[in-house]
Structures are given as structure tokens and as C-alpha cells.
């Protein structure tokens, strides 16, 4: 990405002229606001930024950004982004998706995008519900969830986006929460700055069809005990009084209280750069209410990127074989001449 000296942009410069059509109070607004705040800090011109989404409430996101954008079809945004990025490696390409878009119909594309590790930023708005189609359960809805399509409660064991991303050995995997705007902004920025596929799950409240799905993580009283902020190299400490921590017992995490013979050094220390993703996987398995749920960067390692590698092959081919010459190609191998 070529970074030139640019006029200084503001959040407002990134707002398009379209009326925003989310329900009042929807968590999507907060994510949009943070995105508009973060983009001007990246030093990337607006015209080099592209947002590609699937279908869903969340997927209307590109319309609200004064960048290039595509509101595509349900579940396939990673495909469009892949073709765009391969052919235009200097663009900054964002994929916006929802829990239905990205993990139900689009799960396979997401998985393959993550493993190919193109330099994309994928933000999954996880409201644990189908918003746009008015409230069916989604692959991230908890067991027993009663919705229009599961009147006796959902019986599908939920998928956990980060566990899947780590199952694909994703190189950058993070989580944030719509209401935690500072943290969210940081995560978006980290995602943008990471080279390779950055996968960020954002806990997002759908106040119409799944209100309060994350109240434990956003309510003032509960959030300090129910979430834990991951910081590279730091021990896993949480709680209103920062007196609780996570310790490893063999391969199983456990909540311990600090003091009473337990010191910080006994705790699990976060290492987002660990080449081995097992720690990140283990963290992705910490779930409310048994555990505080981690937010932050689970994993950030440098892996080869498909787009780089492909373009490197193009360069190597050109170096070795010279820039292709069609006339030469056409006449290569066995040919014969017919004269008049």
C-alpha cells in the first residue's frame, strides 16, 4: 500500500451521503463510528479503501462509507475481496459480515479466506441472530434460544467464530464489543495495520431481535467480571478489583483469586505472537458464564500472504522467462507453414 503525504482527513470525510437505515439503538452505529474514526489515522487515502459486505443488517455498512464499496450477495464477501485484492494489491480491503452471513451461508469462504491469509480485514458483527430477516436464530445463537424459527428453543450447538478462525490457523484473530468503543477502535486499527487476514469478531447488540445478548459484557456492574482484556506479555487478570486471574491447570484454564497464595506469576501470560495457536484456541474456548470472555488480540503472527506470494510468482516468472510475448508463445512448439 503506498502511503503518500495526504490532506488530513476526519471522521466526517469518511461518511457517505446515504441515510443510515439501521434501527435506532443498533450496535452497528457504534462500529460505524469507530471505523470512521480509525480510518483517518491510517494514512490511507479514501479512494484506496474498499468495503465489501454480504447481506444482512451489518452488510449495509459499505453504503455509509465514503470509500469504494460493494454490497454483494449473502455470504460471499470474502470471494469478491479475494479477487479484488489479488488484482489490486495496493488497495486496503475490508470485509464486513454478520454471524449469519459469515458463518452460516458463508462459513466456507470465511475459512478459506483466513487460511489463504490475503491482506484483508474481516470484521464479523456477531449479534447472534439474523437481523435483516427479522429474527431467526443464527449459528452463534446459544442452545435453547427461542426465535421465530426455533419456537421450542434452538438445538444447534453454536459455532464460535474465533475457535473456527483458529482452527484454520488464522494469523490475526481478535475480539471486541460494540459498546467498548475505545477498545473497538484499537482492534480495528490493529486489524488494519496487520498484514495478512485480520479477523475481528465484534459482539454487537441487536436491540430489536436479540436485545441484551451481551449485557453481561457491557453492563457496568458485570462487565469487569465477565470479560478479560488480553494484553500481549501480560498475565490474565480481571475483575472489578483486578483481583482475579486465569491460571492453567494442565491444558485447562481455571479462575483463581489473586492473593491467598496466588501471585501474578502463577497466572497464564498472554502471548499473541506464539507461533503455536493452541493458546489462542484455549482462550477462544473461555466462555461466559463459566469464564470471563477474553477481548483483545488473541493471535497476531506473520504468515505468508496469498496475494504477496502470487505476485511474487508473477515476478519470478517474469524474471526467469521474461515478460510474456504472445507472438513468441503462438509460434512455440510445433508449427508449420503453408505458402500460397
Amino acid at each position: 500500500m503506498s502511503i503518500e503525504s495526504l490532506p488530513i482527513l476526519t471522521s466526517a470525510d469518511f461518511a457517505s451521503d446515504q441515510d443510515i437505515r439501521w434501527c435506532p439503538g443498533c450496535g452497528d452505529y457504534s462500529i460505524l463510528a469507530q471505523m470512521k474514526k480509525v480510518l483517518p489515522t491510517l494514512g490511507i487515502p479514501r479512494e484506496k479503501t474498499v468495503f465489501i459486505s454480504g447481506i444482512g443488517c451489518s452488510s449495509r455498512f459499505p453504503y455509509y462509507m465514503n470509500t469504494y464499496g460493494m454490497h454483494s450477495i449473502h455470504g460471499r464477501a470474502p470471494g469478491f475481496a479475494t479477487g479484488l485484492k489479488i488484482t489490486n494489491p495496493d488497495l486496503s480491503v475490508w470485509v464486513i459480515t454478520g454471524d449469519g452471513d459469515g458463518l452460516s451461508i458463508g462459513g466456507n469462504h470465511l475459512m478459506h479466506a483466513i487460511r489463504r491469509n490475503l491482506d484483508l480485514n474481516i470484521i464479523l458483527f456477531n449479534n447472534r441472530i439474523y437481523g435483516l430477516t427479522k429474527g431467526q436464530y443464527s449459528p452463534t445463537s446459544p442452545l435453547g434460544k427461542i426465535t421465530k424459527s426455533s419456537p421450542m428453543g434452538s438445538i444447534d450447538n453454536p459455532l464460535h467464530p474465533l475457535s473456527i478462525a483458529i482452527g484454520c490457523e488464522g494469523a490475526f484473530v481478535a475480539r471486541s464489543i460494540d459498546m467498548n468503543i475505545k477498545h473497538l477502535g484499537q482492534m480495528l486499527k490493529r486489524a488494519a495495520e496487520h498484514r495478512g487476514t485480520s479477523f475481528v469478531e465484534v459482539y454487537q447488540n441487536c436491540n430489536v431481535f436479540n436485545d441484551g445478548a451481551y449485557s453481561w459484557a457491557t453492563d457496568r456492574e458485570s462487565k469487569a467480571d465477565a470479560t478479560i482484556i488480553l494484553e500481549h506479555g501480560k498475565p490474565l487478570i480481571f475483575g472489578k478489583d483486578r483481583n482475579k486471574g486465569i491460571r492453567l491447570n494442565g491444558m485447562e484454564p481455571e479462575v483463581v483469586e489473586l492473593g491467598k497464595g496466588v501471585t501474578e506469576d502463577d497466572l497464564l501470560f498472554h502471548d499473541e505472537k506464539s507461533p503455536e495457536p493452541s493458546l489462542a484456541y484455549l482462550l477462544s474456548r473461555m466462555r461466559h458464564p463459566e469464564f470471563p470472555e477474553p477481548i483483545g488480540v488473541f493471535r497476531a503472527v506473520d504468515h505468508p500472504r496469498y496475494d504477496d506470494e502470487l505476485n511474487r510468482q508473477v515476478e519470478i516468472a517474469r524474471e526467469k522467462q521474461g515478460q510474456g510475448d504472445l507472438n513468441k508463445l503462438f509460434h512455440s512448439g510445433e508449427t508449420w507453414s503453408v505458402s500460397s
Partner: protein
Amino acid sequence: MSTTTEGTSGSAKQVFTIEGATVRLAGDSGDGMQLAGMQFTNTSALAGNDIATFPDYPAEIRAPRGTLAGVSGFQLHFSSDDIFTPGDKLNALVAMNPAALKTNLADLEPNGILIVNVDAFDKKGLSLAHYEKNPLETGELDGYNLIKVNMTTLTRGAVKDLGLNVRVADRCRNFFAMGLLYWLYGRSTDVTLRFIDAKFGAKPDVAEANRRTLLAGRNYGETTEALPSSYHIDPAKLTPGTYRNMTGNQALAWGFMAAAECSGKELFLGSYPITPASDILHELSKFKNFGVRTFQAEDEIAAITSVIGAAFGGAMAITTSSGPGIALKGEAMGLAMILELPLLIINVQRGGPSTGLPTKTEQSDLLQAMFGRNGECPIPIVSACSPADCFDTAIEAWRIAVRFMTPVVVLSDGYIANGAEPWRIPDIDDLPKIKITHPTGDDADTFHPYSRDEHLARPWAIPGTPGLMHRIGGLEKQDITGDVCYDPDNHQHMTDLRAKKVANIADDIPLQDVNGPEKGDLLVLGWGGTFGACTTAVERCRAEGLSVAHAHLRYLNPFPANLAELMGRYKKVLIPELNMGQLRFLIRATFLVDAAGLNKVKGKPFAVSEIADEIKRLLA
């Protein structure tokens, strides 16, 4: 047939000059028939003959050895005259085993040359082919010119002192068969000897074994008394130029590369492997030094969506597949159409429905191409009619796509894809340039993503261009601005506009031409891979005095502007298709013309005689 006492081939035996011949090599899938066929083809092409080929192999990678299901065949028609088909009836058949004999004999002409590898006619071979008695002994082959050759024994003998194991030695048998055919048709072994060097250079003993077997086969022809004479075929009177052999898939690949060059674009292919389209992916993935980027996607949907993304980004983007894969692309094709982005969707058709007959040819995806997606969603369709024609079709499809800012479907089929014919090599500088303009930052003040030019095309503004930021998507869009718009009248207007844009292409493509009389009793109207059979059948019938002409459609949506008028000049219209009447359906609906159909879905191309017979029946 004329006779020369001294063959040009330097044979001591008598040499007859003939116009051409149709020969089929048939054997087990593991017998290397496809390789032998390709060599025979190249050799004949380099001898200056016109050629047409028809490879035919089983769906299995290696069907059980010696079984009927495992037979693989390669048919070559070569001639000193212009030819258009691989031939109906075989002048010569090589059967490497009993199964190959059983499945291919019906196509051999009476008294045709029948070369069999007698070594393979043992008890096991016969029983695998479900022969109760050895047909070489029952007299049932008396109507043919039967040449029994101990091919396995002779091959083993030829390589004996090389110390190869028997399996490797036996794999050379196809070269023995080739050598024999080369002698029979006065072909030079040079091309194949060069090929052996290039292909097996790294394994000198294998190379040597193949060389020896090839020559042993040739010498066997010269010495065996079973073959009293050989044939000579003059070079064909092709348009002057330099030629090479091309299969349809290769010609498509090269055509796309040429189109990219002519339009100043780099080529992007997003594809998922499927028979018989995969070879386009294989071919294009070789050319990274041309800036060709191939992406093997996780499925057909990812393939086409990557292509739409690349098209949004300004690349020349194409996706290749076959019927079942195209079915999966329907939803995204609808998006491409409403986004009004230029890109190509290639369908190398195969036998359907469903998984169908993956390695067999058919033309049954035309209506899918027209209608295989939701809503009012017109997409132009062009088709290729022969292996070499694929090259031009590729370029023409891209020209339409960018001029009209639209996805374009390109139809090929398994027969064209794998068949080969001589291709006259163009000079890349002689190919017409394809002009593309992208709006720039200077246009920012007046830019609207859904404004229109004289072709009703919208501007192709690509991400990265300052000042032209815009959003596109699959919801109905407001005229000019491209904003999401639910207005009723706008939806009608945009639907009409999109239809009109595609219909207007009729003014931008050549009028349909006709081979034969300007008017008359019958018009044979064809499309796609039936070109050769239609041409030959119509010419043959005309030679017999019938009033019949042939028009072959490249453009299937929209049709050429003069098509109605043209059809009106003939008393009858006959539409031969390798489907149950799909073009006929379109013609009837569009023009209310009561065209007759000649339809077949047998996984094989038309025989010339099938079409000729139908013409005669209609005119009787």
C-alpha cells in the same frame, strides 16, 4: 485414389494417394491412446493436412484394466481437403484389446483396415470384454481388412536389451501402434521422435524404448506382408500462413490472453476444476510471466465472486466451468449483471442433467445460460463453433463485455474443448485493439456510477481512482446515481434499460452470414460444436443438388439483427442440436418460426450422415 509407384514415404511397397482418412486408436485407458492420438495429430498437421480430432475417454481415472468401461479412444481425420469433422465412419481402427474392438467396431467401414493386438486376445482379455469366443477366430471380422499384430511380443522384443521391467516395456505399445500407422499413411516420425526427447529426456532408457518401439512399428509396416501398400495424402490447401494445432480449451486460454493484451489489461482467472473445463485453468496457470493470475477457488461460487471482485478492480476477469458448476454461479451472475461489470463466464458443456456424463459432449446448457438465475436478468451469450474458433470467440466476448459493461457467457463444449484442428497463427499486432476507458479523478465532478454512454454502458470507475468513490450492490439502483432505490417506476426503468442494453448488442455484431444459396428450400441453423457436421452435411447435400444453406450462430443472445429476415428466405428451417431443442425453443419464442429440430443426446457429436439424412428427409 491415385497410385504412385514410388511413394513419397520412400516405401518399397506401392503407395496410393488418397484425399484423407479417418483413423481411430482405441485401447485401455492405461494404454496411452490419447498421447498416441495427439502425436498422430501433430504429425499429420505438420505434414500439411487439414485435421479434426475427437478424443473420447471414460470418466474414471483408470477404469479397471481391460473392461468395456475402461476403453479410451482417439479419432483423427486428416485430409488434403478442407475438413470440418473428425469423420463419421472409420477407414482404419486400431484395437489394442478385445474391449476396444467390441466398443469401436461398429464405426469401422466395410473392408476398413482393422489392426488388432492379438496378444491381448487371451482368455482374460476376452472375458473382460464379455466375448464368449475369440472374434479373431470366429470369422465375424471377415468383412474387414484384418491385420493381426503381436504388438506386445514385438514391443517387448524391441526393448529387450534395455533391461526395463515388463510393465514399463508394455507401456511402449502405443508407440508401436503409432509407428505402424505412420508407415501406413506415409507420416514422418520426426515430430514424435522430438517429442520423445523432450518428454522422456530425463529417463533415457524410457526414451530409448519409446524410440525403438516407434521405429519397430514403422518397420513392421514396411516388412509385414499383411500390408501390401501404404497411402499418401497431399498437404491441404489451407490459407497461407503459419499453423499450429489447437484444442478448443487451449484456444480459449490463448484467446483470453490475446484479448487481455489487445485491451491493455492483465488477466485474472478465478476457477474451480471441473471436467471438461479444467484444462483452461491448467493452461492459463502456466503464464504468470504474462501477468496472468489464476486463482483456484474453494468452489464455483468463490470463483465467480472473485472474478466480480477483480472486475470491480479493473482487471480482465474470467471464470471457467461446466454445467453443474455454472448452476452454482447463477446467483452471482445475477449480481454481476445488475452491477454491470464486464467479465466472462465460460461454460464448457458436458452431458447432463446433474453430474450426467462428465467426459461426454452435449449442448444442453443454452437455456441455463439464458435463464438460470432469478429475476429479469439478460446476459449476452456467444458460442464457439470449433477448436480454433475458440480463440476468436474469446476475444469477441471480451469486446462485447467491455463495450457494453456486462457479463458475457461463452459456450463451448467437451467436443470442441478436447478436439484439435489447425489454427492459423495471427500476428498479435494485427488483432483489433479493444478500447477501454476508465474515468479518472478529473471526471470527479461529473461522475455518476450509473450514467450511460451511447451503448448504454455505465462508466467503469475503478477503486483507487481519487474522487470517484462509490458503492455498488445487488439491490435495485437508482438510475444515474446508483443509490439503492425502491421506487416503482425506477425499477421498471432500470429493468427496461438493462434489457435494452443487451438487445442493442445486435447492432454491434455482424449480420448473420450464410453458406450456400441466399434463399432456398432449407436453412440449416446451427450453433456451437455442430459446425463441422452441419457444414459438411449441407455441402454434401448441395453437391447432390439440394437447395440448402447453412447459417451457424455465434451470437445466441441477442441474435443477429437479420436473423428473422434470413430465416424467412427459406421454406424450412432445420436446427440440429446436441440437446432436445434448446436453440429451437429460443427461435420459436423469439421469431414464431416453426423450425424443425434434429436432436440427439448420446454424448457424441453428430455424424455428418445424420444431418444429411435429415436434410434429405425434410426435402423429400
